[in-house]
Every structure is written in structure tokens, then in C-alpha cells.
């Protein structure tokens, strides 16, 4: 699974795991029903304490993002279309939150900030189209 | 330059060299002292100094210094990285090496010279000129040694360490040169003793100018022939039983001792001491027993063998190997070698003993004496030995010798027959002697009839010129002299194990290196000083002091005779005592705290300054 752990980032490792798994689910890399690697194998692969993996998994389970089946590996939960959308929005909000803080600290007015944001999105769409 | 000399790696070996000098001096004195003790065959000690034995001892001492240096690091890595000309490094190490050689020979010669000078007034006919000759001997070896040092330094002069074939070659050449030159100097007038030094300077100068500007740092020779990765890891899983036990033992031994020096030095030395202690020389050729006078020297050597292993215990810190096992590995091989040497000497000695006539009727200084080995004599503790009596009332004062003023006790021979004894008395005494020594009864009448006759001057002389009881005593072995072995070994072990325990106690983390050094060197110094003191007293006092060793052996014999259980009882007591001492030292060994950082410092431990 494509997970990168950065021990220096200031964010606890279990949180990093949770965030990255959620992102993969939201972006479609992990689909509902896909199996997740076992605690042991993921800990061996990442070089991380298995308890940390366990913790991340249990939080994700608590949030109903992943499901536990008796005697079988954990799988990504089935999310209704509405729940999936909500998940994506949550991800988006989390990503934008630091930017909002920066915008306020820089003292940029809202309209300008929105204009910049719209411009960047348009540029990104154009680039993607050109590549095709 | 002085700074370089101070930092020179050879200085780390200074302690070892002092040990060698000490042993060489002691060995030299042993040789001299033993010969001096052989009365009445007194020869001038000076002749001994030119004999083969002394040359061998000193050659070995110098060879040792050169060997240690040839196989060690000559220039420190730290100094190589400094902007110093390589010639200077070469010169400083050559100087230090020369100083070491001169130091060892000077120590040996000096000790001998000082003793000789101090005692020459008491024993003029023996020690006349001894001091001067001792110094001359030392000078010859010192000068030859300097040449040897320069020769060793001329092999690959710009390499920080020589190894393998080159080291062996350089060392062999140097030692051969030293021995040959020293022997050659014997034949030359004394003033020419400095010739080798001139040669050394010439050779040194040539090497010095030829030293390449860069010193190559040589760690150790590299060998890169490895098996494929991963394979072979499981080889050796099949080691079982004896092979495994030997592998374990050998690994522990190798880890704890400086290889290959330890076995090369230890094995011959311990065997030699064992043989000496067995009294084989005395058994073969007569002379005074001296075994107990060597006790402190052997303790000193045992103490020297114990210095290294405790400092290497850190190698086993992570292994579940008990300290008891490690203690056994560091101590028992030494004792085993000593015992083997002793056993071998005893076997050879006993064989020789069976051939000799122990009861003799010999002509010494104008008259005939009945002579038996002194160990079969008796002791009178008050200094007033009883007269030897006969059934018909004739009695005479026995031959006796005091012990040089330490105690009132005297050793006396109950079998002596002084001037004026009747023939019957002489025969009676001989008969008694035979009974005591061989346990066989030979009638005095038989002796008188077959072996003795009245000579021209009316004295009793052996019939046929030489007195021999071989006819009656064919195949009879002399009675054993009592359990000397256990007592001897106990007296060697006791000071050693006490002091070694003190040394172990000092090996804790937190005790400064200086303290550790003091403990070790004071113990060594104490043993050595006691040994030398013993010899001093021996040379200085009346003849009779040398009988001290015999005195102890007689005491042991009488003790065993009086003890319940006899000789076995003595063995048991000594065995228990030795075992107790062993455990006593082992307990302290188990608590040693060994630090890998001090492995380097271990070199420093061996420096007394």
C-alpha cells in the first residue's frame, strides 16, 4: 500500500496513517471491499511499531471507514454515495484549513484569495487537458 | 623529539619488558646461587658469567624485546597524520627500542653487579671481580642489542607495522646478530665492546637516509577471499561433544589471552618451572635441594600470567557463560602445564635416582665421611642434636648444620661417623643409613667384611677403592621423601591467589587506572623482592642457609609421618586448602566489571609509570 511515514513531521504516525488511508479511499485508490494489509505485515513493511498500526486501524474502524470481519483481514467499508461525498469534503476541508490560516495571517482579502484559488484550479485543468 | 619518544607505542610494552628483565635477573641469580651453594665445589662465579647458561638467558631477554616490537605497531596513527618528517618518526622509535634493549640488559646486569659488589667482601674467593664482569656482560649484550634494534628497524622502515614473513625475517636476523655479536665480543678485549654500536650507527644512518618520505599506515594484511553470501552460516552446526567442548575452550582461551604470545611464552616457561620444581636436577646429579627457595619466583610468574585475562572479560559480557568457567580457563591451563612439567621431571628424576648410590662413603678433605642426601636427615629444634649411640656404648656427636641464623634448629645426620669412630661404629652407621634411605636391612658385619677394610694409615677405607652397595641393593628404590608436591604447590598458590584476588578486586568500574596499576605492580614487586631477598640472605650468610629448602622438605616428611593418615592426610589438607584458595579468588573474579574502553588502557596498565 502506498503509505509514506514521516517521523519528523510533528504529526503522530498513527494520524499520518489514518489520513493517508482516508485519502486513498476518498481518491478511489482503495475501493470498498479492498483488503487492507495485516498489522504485522504493514508494520514490517513500514518499520513501524505494530501497535501504532493497530491504533490507526481501530480509529478508522470506529469511524466506520473500514470494517472488521471475523477471522479475515480488514476491508474498506461500503460507503453510500452521500457518505463518500462527505468523506471527500472532510478531506478537502482538512487540506484547506492550513491555507485559510495562512490567508488570514497574510491579510489577503477574501475575494482576492478566491480569485487566486479559482485561477490555480483552472490552470490545473488546462494542464491536465493538454496532457491528454 | 622528546615528545615523540614519550608517545612512542613501544613504551606501552615497558611493563612487559620489566617483567622479562626481572625474570632474567632472577634466572641469572638462580644459576649463580645454585652453583655457589654446591659445596665444596666452589668455583668462581665469574666463570659462570661467561658460560652458556647466562648467554642463553640474556639472549632470550633481548630476543623477547625485539620480538614484541617486531610484531607490534611502530608508529602511531596519530603521529603519521602530523606534518612530521618520516625520518624523525623512524629515529625516535629506533631510539626508544634501543633504550628498551639497553634498559633490560642494564637491569639484569645491574642487579647482578650490585649484589656481587655488596657481597664480595664476604665471599671474596667466589665473587672476586663479579660486579665488573656482570656489567661487562650487560654492556656486551646492550651494544649487540642496539645493533639488533637497528636491524629490526631496517626492515620496511617506512611501514607502521610489519607482519608475516617480513616480521619473522627481521626478527630472526636481529636475534641471530645479537647472539653472534655478543658471543664474538667475549673473545675481544673489553674496550672493543662499543664496536657493534658503531656498526649500528652506520647501518642506522644508511636506513635513515633511505626512509621514504611517507610512512605507510599498515593495519593488518587484508585477505579478501570470502565464501558466497549466506552460505556456510550453518556449517559447524554439526559440532558436538568433544569437538564442541574443545572449540569452546579454545575460543575462550584465545579471547582472554594475547595470542600468539601467550602460549608461545607460557608453555615452555611453565613446563620448565615444573621440571625445576620437581627436583630432577637434584635427583640426577645431587647438590642442594632448592625447590622451596623458588616459590616466590614461580608465584611472580603466575601473577604475570594473570594480568591480561581479567581485562578482556568484556568480550563475554553478552554471552551466557559463567564467570566460573572463564576463571577456570584463565587459571587451570597454567596449573596443568606446571603439573605436567613437574610430573615429567619426577619421572625422569626417579629413573635417575634409582641408578645412583645414595648412601656413600667418600673421601672429602682428608677423611672419609658417610654421606646421605640431606632430606633423609633429621631436625633438632633446639640446636642440640642427640649423639649417635651404639649398643656397646660408643657415641659421637653427629654432623649438623645450622640454618644461617634464622632459627636455633639444626639439621643433623643420625648416620654420621666423625674422625675417631671405630670401624664397627662406622659400619653400624652405614647400616642405619641404608635402612633409613632404602628400607632394607644390611648387617653392619656384612658391610665391614665385604665393603670396608683397614687402610695403610689405620683408617677405614672402602674395599676396592670405591664404596658401593649395588650388590645388596640391586633393584631397590629409595624410600619416598614425603608428600612434597602438595605442600610445594600450596606454598606457590597461596601468595599468588591472595595477591591475584586483590588485583581482581581492583578491577571495578570507577576505580581509577592509577589505582589498578599500583595494586598490580606492588604485588609483583612484593613477590619479586621477597625472592631476591631470599637470595641475598643466601649468598650473604654462612653456608647452611641454602639448606633451608631441605629443612622444609624434612619437616614435611616428619609431619606426614606423624599425621593421622600420613602422606594421604597431607595431600587431603593441602588439597582442601588449595581448593579453598581457588574459590576465594574465583569469587572476586566473578565480580569484575570489565570495560571495553579499557582494552586500550590495558596497555597502559602494563606500564608501571
Amino acid at each position: 500500500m502506498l503509505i509514506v511515514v514521516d517521523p519528523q513531521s510533528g504529526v503522530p504516525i498513527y494520524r499520518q496513517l489514518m489520513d493517508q488511508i482516508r485519502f486513498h479511499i476518498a481518491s478511489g485508490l482503495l475501493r470498498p471491499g479492498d483488503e487492507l494489509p495485516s498489522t504485522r505485515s504493514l508494520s514490517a513493511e513500514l518499520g513501524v511499531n505494530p501497535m501504532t498500526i493497530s491504533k490507526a486501524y481501530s480509529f478508522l474502524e470506529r469511524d466506520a471507514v473500514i470494517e472488521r470481519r471475523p477471522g479475515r483481514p480488514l476491508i474498506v467499508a461500503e460507503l453510500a454515495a452521500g457518505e463518500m461525498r462527505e468523506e471527500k469534503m472532510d478531506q478537502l476541508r482538512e487540506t484547506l484549513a492550513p491555507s485559510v490560516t495562512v490567508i488570514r495571517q497574510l491579510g489577503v482579502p477574501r475575494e482576492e484569495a478566491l480569485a487566486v484559488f479559482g485561477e490555480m484550479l483552472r490552470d490545473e485543468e488546462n494542464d491536465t487537458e493538454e496532457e491528454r | 623529539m622528546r615528545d615523540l619518544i614519550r608517545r612512542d607505542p613501544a613504551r606501552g610494552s615497558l611493563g612487559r619488558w620489566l617483567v622479562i628483565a626481572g625474570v632474567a635477573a632472577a634466572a641469572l641469580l638462580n644459576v649463580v646461587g645454585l652453583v655457589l651453594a654446591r659445596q665444596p665445589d666452589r668455583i668462581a662465579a665469574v666463570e659462570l658469567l661467561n658460560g652458556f647458561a647466562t648467554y642463553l638467558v640474556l639472549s632470550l631477554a633481548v630476543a623477547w624485546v625485539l620480538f614484541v616490537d617486531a610484531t607490534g605497531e611502530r608508529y602511531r596513527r596519530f603521529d603519521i597524520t602530523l606534518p612530521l618528517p618520516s625520518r624523525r618518526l623512524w629515529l625516535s622509535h629506533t631510539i626508544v627500542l634501543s633504550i628498551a634493549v639497553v634498559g633490560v640488559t642494564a637491569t639484569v646486569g645491574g642487579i647482578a653487579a650490585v649484589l656481587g659488589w655488596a657481597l664480595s667482601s664476604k665471599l671474596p674467593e667466589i665473587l672476586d671481580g663479579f660486579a665488573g664482569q656482570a656489567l661487562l656482560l650487560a654492556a656486551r649484550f646492550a651494544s649487540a642489542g642496539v645493533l639488533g634494534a637497528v636491524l629490526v628497524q631496517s626492515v620496511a622502515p617506512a611501514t607502521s607495522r610489519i607482519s608475516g614473513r617480513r616480521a619473522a625475517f627481521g626478527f630472526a636476523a636481529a636475534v641471530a646478530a645479537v647472539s653472534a655479536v655478543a658471543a664474538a665480543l667475549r673473545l675481544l678485549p673489553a674496550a672493543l665492546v662499543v664496536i657493534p654500536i658503531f656498526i649500528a650507527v652506520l647501518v642506522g644512518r644508511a636506513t635513515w637516509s633511505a626512509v621514504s618520505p611517507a610512512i605507510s599506515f599498515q593495519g593488518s594484511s587484508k585477505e579478501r577471499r570470502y565464501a558466497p553470501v549466506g552460505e556456510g552460516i550453518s556449517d559447524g552446526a554439526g559440532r558436538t561433544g568433544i569437538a564442541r567442548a574443545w572449540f569452546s575452550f579454545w575460543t575462550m582461551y584465545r579471547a582472554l589471552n594475547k595470542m600468539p604470545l601467550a602460549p608461545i611464552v607460557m608453555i615452555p616457561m611453565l613446563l620448565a618451572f615444573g621440571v625445576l620444581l620437581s627436583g630432577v636436577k637434584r635427583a640426577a646429579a645431587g647438590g642442594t635441594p632448592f625447590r622451596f627457595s623458588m616459590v616466590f619466583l614461580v608465584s611472580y610468574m603466575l601473577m604475570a600470567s594473570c594480568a591480561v585475562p581479567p581485562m578482556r572479560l568484556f568480550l563475554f559480557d553478552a554471552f551466557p557463560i559463567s564467570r566460573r568457567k572463564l576463571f577456570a580457563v584463565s587459571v587451570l591451563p597454567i596449573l596443568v602445564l606446571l603439573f605436567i612439567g613437574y610430573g615429567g621431571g619426577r619421572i625422569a628424576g626417579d629413573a635417575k635416582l634409582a641408578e645412583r648410590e645414595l648412601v656413600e662413603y667418600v673421601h672429602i678433605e682428608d677423611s672419609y665421611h658417610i654421606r646421605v642426601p640431606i632430606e633423609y636427615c633429621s631436625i633438632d629444634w633446639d640446636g642440640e642434636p642427640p649423639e649417635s649411640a651404639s649398643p656397646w656404648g660408643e657415641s659421637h656427636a653427629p654432623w649438623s648444620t645450622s640454618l644461617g641464623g634464622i632459627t636455633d634448629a639444626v639439621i643433623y645426620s643420625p648416620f654420621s661417623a666423625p674422625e675417631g669412630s671405630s670401624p664397627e661404629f662406622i659400619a653400624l652407621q652405614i647400616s642405619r643409613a641404608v635402612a633409613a634411605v632404602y628400607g632394607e636391612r644390611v648387617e653392619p658385619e656384612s658391610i665391614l667384611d665385604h665393603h670396608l677394610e683397614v687402610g695403610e694409615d689405620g683408617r677405614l677405607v672402602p674395599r676396592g677403592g670405591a664404596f658401593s652397595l649395588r650388590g645388596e641393593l640391586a633393584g631397590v628404590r629409595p624410600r619416598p621423601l614425603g608428600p612434597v608436591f602438595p605442600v610445594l604447590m600450596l606454598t606457590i598458590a597461596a601468595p599468588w591467589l591472595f595477591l591475584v584476588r586483590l588485583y581482581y578486586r581492583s578491577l571495578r568500574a570507577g576505580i581509577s587506572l592509577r589505582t589498578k596499576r599500583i595494586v598490580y605492580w606492588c604485588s609483583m614487586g612484593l613477590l619479586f623482592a621477597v625472592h631476591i631477598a631470599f637470595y641475598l640472605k643466601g649468598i650473604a650468610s654462612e653456608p647452611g642457609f641454602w639448606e633451608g629448602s631441605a629443612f622444609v622438605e624434612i619437616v614435611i616428611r616428619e609431619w606426614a609421618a606423624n599425621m593421622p593418615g600420613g602422606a594421604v592426610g597431607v595431600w587431603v589438607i593441602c588439597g582442601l586448602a588449595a581448593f579453598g584458595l581457588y574459590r576465594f579468588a574465583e569469587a572476586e573474579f566473578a565480580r569484575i566489571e570489565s570495560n571495553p574502553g579499557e582494552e586500550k588502557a590495558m596497555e597502559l596498565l602494563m606500564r608501571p609509570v
Partner: protein
Amino acid sequence: MKKLLEFDGVHRAYDRGVDVLHGVTFSLNAKEIVGLLGVNGAGKTTLIRIAMGMLEAQSGSVRVFGMDPRECPVDVKRRVGYVSEDQILPPFLRVRDIIDIHRGLFPTWDEEMARDLASTFSLSPEAKISKLSKGQARRVALVCAAAHRPELLLLDEPAGGLDPAARREFLETSIRLLNEAGTTILFSSHYMQDVERVAERVVMLHDGEVLIDRSLDDLREGHCVALVPAGDGVTKQRLLGIEGCLGVRERTDALHAVFALSPERSAAAIATELDVSNVNCRQVALEEMFIELVGGQS
């Protein structure tokens, strides 16, 4: 839960009253991975050596599997694996010889694991230990320590002087041992990233005492670093006086303080006590917290 390793009031001094360890008390439960932190000379190596029975605790007690490692050294060492930065292996042995020695000494030796580790680490069995590089020798030590599936693994700066790839191998092997054999691990390290990855609990020694003994998550989430701009009334003493403050470090224009509180509560506490509001409180990675804590002890 069973306590595998217990230190209770351990004292150890070297020269004349200079205490290295001054009453250290903490313990390890089964299957924990604990990181032991501290500046050089804080006593980490001494503590681990005491646990191995190499040094004697001058007062206090240490129990490994309930036993005193000085009294029963062989029984303890049979179940412990030990790798240290300053460990010296017998230099005259070959790699396969030293593995053979361990094979014979440890009853729980696992040949499969030994082979597997040896091949992962690319060890050459014929190589003489004296000719190995530092990293290779350390790997040999790790194979020897791990292949007998120890119940307790004591690592004293095992990654000191090693390249990052070698360091990662150490971590992965430790994790593997935990997963496969349920090994408890105590390791001291200066590489905070490694500690962050692998430790679940952190014990920090300072001045011979235990300064911090917390789970790593709690340390990260329940602690923060506050940057308080210098100004009137802002002194080290006053900050230290605030409850929850663990240490204060004076810098050029500000004071850095470590709090055992969340960022919000720290900011609130400082605002209340010192009447300053432009305080920057944030959660930080272990390395920064270590620096602030250690620098902030008077």
C-alpha cells in the same frame, strides 16, 4: 502484566560522589518497545549494563525476568539479546564461528531465522571479524542477538555510526522479533526518527534521574512547546512556576518552554500567569521536544 525488567531506585557512582544514576526507577512490561533517551553521559549505557549484570548497582535493585542479573547471570543472559555501539566481538573469530558459539550457548536458537537474517544482511561466513566494517560487525552482533528469539532485547545505541540503510535494518529486525517472537525491547538511541517509528513508550534520563516516562503518543499529543517572546515580566522562573511546565530554555528573543498540556491549554495558562497573549504553542516532533527539554533543565 508481567514485568520483564524492573529498575528500582538504582544508584551508580563512579568517581568519588559523582553520581551517574541517582535513583532510577522504571520497568518494562512484556512486548513493550521502550526508547531510552538522554544526552551523552546521562547514564543510558550504564543502566543497560546494569541490566545485563556487567556493572553492579551500588544501591537499589534491578530484576530481569524476576532475577538479579549479578546473581544468576547465565540464566538471565540466555534469554536476553544484547547489541551495543561499543561492543567488541572476539576479533580473531570468523563470522560463522561466532554464530556457532551462540548456537551452542542459547537453547532457543532458531537456525532458520539465523540463515534468513544472515542472508538479508549479506554476511560472509568466512570473513574474520577483525576485517569487518563497523556496520557489518554490528549486523553480525544483531544476528547473534536476534536469532535465539530472546524474550528481551537490549540495544545500546545500536545504530550509532551506521548508515541510514543499516539503521533501517535494525528497526525492521526489531519489529520482526516483536511480531514473531513477542520480544520486549529496550533501546537507547540518538536518532529520534527511529524512536518515533518504533517506540511506544519513551523514558528520558537526565542528571541520573528519570525525567520523563510516558507513552509516545501521550508525549506527542499531550505535550507542546511554547515560544514566549521576551518582555517585561517574562522570566524563566515564572514560567517554570506554571503548573505543567517541564523546562524552559532561554534564547535570544524568546523563551522556549515545554508543557505537559495541550497547546490551547498551555497558551491559556501562560496568558493567565504572565499576561502575555502572542504565544506560539504547538505540538512538535520528538527531536525538538528532546532539545527543548534537555536544554531547559537548569
